[in-house]
């Protein structure tokens, strides 16, 4: 038998319709019509209670349920419509970014990485290489090339040819790429660029 997008649970007072997370409403209703055709006489006397669980039903979807139950001449109870939540806000408190990319080698002159998310580079970013990320950049090595990030930039040593964080261009000097290999993070706060030992922030 075809997998249904819902589970029916009968009690003495009602038929609970627990709906799945992804099946589209029209498909679900077609499946329900099929069930009613075959076993309708058992359920027809009881009201249907639609139980959405974690699923958010839009007003249009609720209207589809309503129309269906009316056409079937069934008693029904639908969940209260909820205000339309901003899906981006609900799932990602921060602006949505792609997942982190891992580059497992040194980026050499002429190689480049551009991503809508974060990037982790296990190696150096050499002179003539470029990394551009909408999120943050993490370099387990020395930055000598061109890097720009929407978030922050963390590296073991900084000697970039050009570097920008957010809209701010970093004009810092070569910090002596060979001195004490302690990771540092470059980030922007209130429009001002800061450099701090990595992990110390917040």
């Amino acid at each position: 038998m075809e997998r249904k997008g819902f589970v029916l649970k009968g009690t003495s007072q009602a038929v609970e319709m627990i709906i799945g997370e992804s099946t589209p409403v029209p498909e679900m209703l077609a499946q329900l019509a099929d069930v009613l055709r075959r076993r309708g006489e058992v359920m027809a006397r009881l009201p249907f209670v639609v139980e959405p669980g974690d699923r958010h039903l839009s007003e249009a979807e609720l209207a589809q349920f309503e129309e269906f139950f009316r056409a079937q001449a069934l008693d029904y109870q639908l969940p209260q419509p909820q205000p339309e939540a901003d899906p981006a806000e609900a799932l990602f408190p921060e602006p949505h970014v792609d997942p982190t990319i891992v580059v497992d080698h040194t980026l050499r002159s002429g190689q480049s990485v551009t991503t809508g998310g974060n990037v982790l580079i296990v190696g150096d970013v050499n002179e003539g290489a470029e990394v551009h990320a909408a999120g943050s950049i993490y370099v387990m090595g020395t930055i000598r090339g061109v890097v720009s990030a929407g978030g922050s930039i963390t590296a073991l040593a900084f000697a970039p040819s050009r570097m920008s964080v957010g809209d701010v261009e970093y004009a810092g000097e070569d910090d002596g790429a060979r001195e004490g290999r302690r990771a540092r993070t470059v980030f922007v706060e209130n429009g001002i660029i800061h450099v701090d030992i990595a992990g110390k922030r917040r």
Partner: protein
Amino acid sequence: MGKVIVVTSGKGGVGKTTTTANVGGALTKLGRKVLLVDMDVGLRNLDLVMGLENRVVYTFMDVLEGRATAEQAMVREKRSDGALMLLAASQLHNKQDLDIDKVREAIAALAEDFDYVFLDSPAGIEHGFEASSAPAGRALIVVTPDVTSVRDADRVIGLLENKGVRDCALIVNKYDRVLIERKKQLTSDDIVDVLGAELIGVVPDDKAIIEATNRGDILALSQNTPATAAYMEIARRLEGEQTGFAALSTGRSLLSMFRRQK
């Protein structure tokens, strides 16, 4: 089956051809049979550096295009008693004329008869470089202590890695201790740090190399100079031995330090 090694650099004028001739020569002193192939079609030089320009009849291109056999085209170097051979580049063709599949096939066949086959790549990263690196299992990257040379070498190593040639060893050439100690040029440590590849040789800036090259004489076979010692070190390292880098040692013997104190 011999080892096929490309000698390359990206940048021109760093000493690829001279290095090819001398490392090849040094290996013959260790009893190896070596073939040097000039891949710089249209701008051939290796025959001059080896002093064989008058002996070239057929070129590698003639072999690739079936006008001559490899045996007919190969030229023997004079001093090495047949252990060192040259396949010259055609001066009448362009690099685009090299068919990479044919090059790969021909080099694989030649490698059967030698311990080492060196491909002397042209400068640049275009077709000539592609054809030179395609048959190679290993690369020698020649780099001088200059920022320009290091950047180009970095690019070339990246390209070689993309092609699957992951074994790249560095030869730091024209190493001028005086300039480097005055911090006017990069040290070999700086270069290795940026390029992240194995160091296999440091060749001092030695006027004897220039003179020998212009004479058409392979220094490693004809004289004993600091540069010859460096080429021998590279040959030994290619053979798997661990040796130091004479060009990097302080150069002050205990005796001279004692004298200075007086």
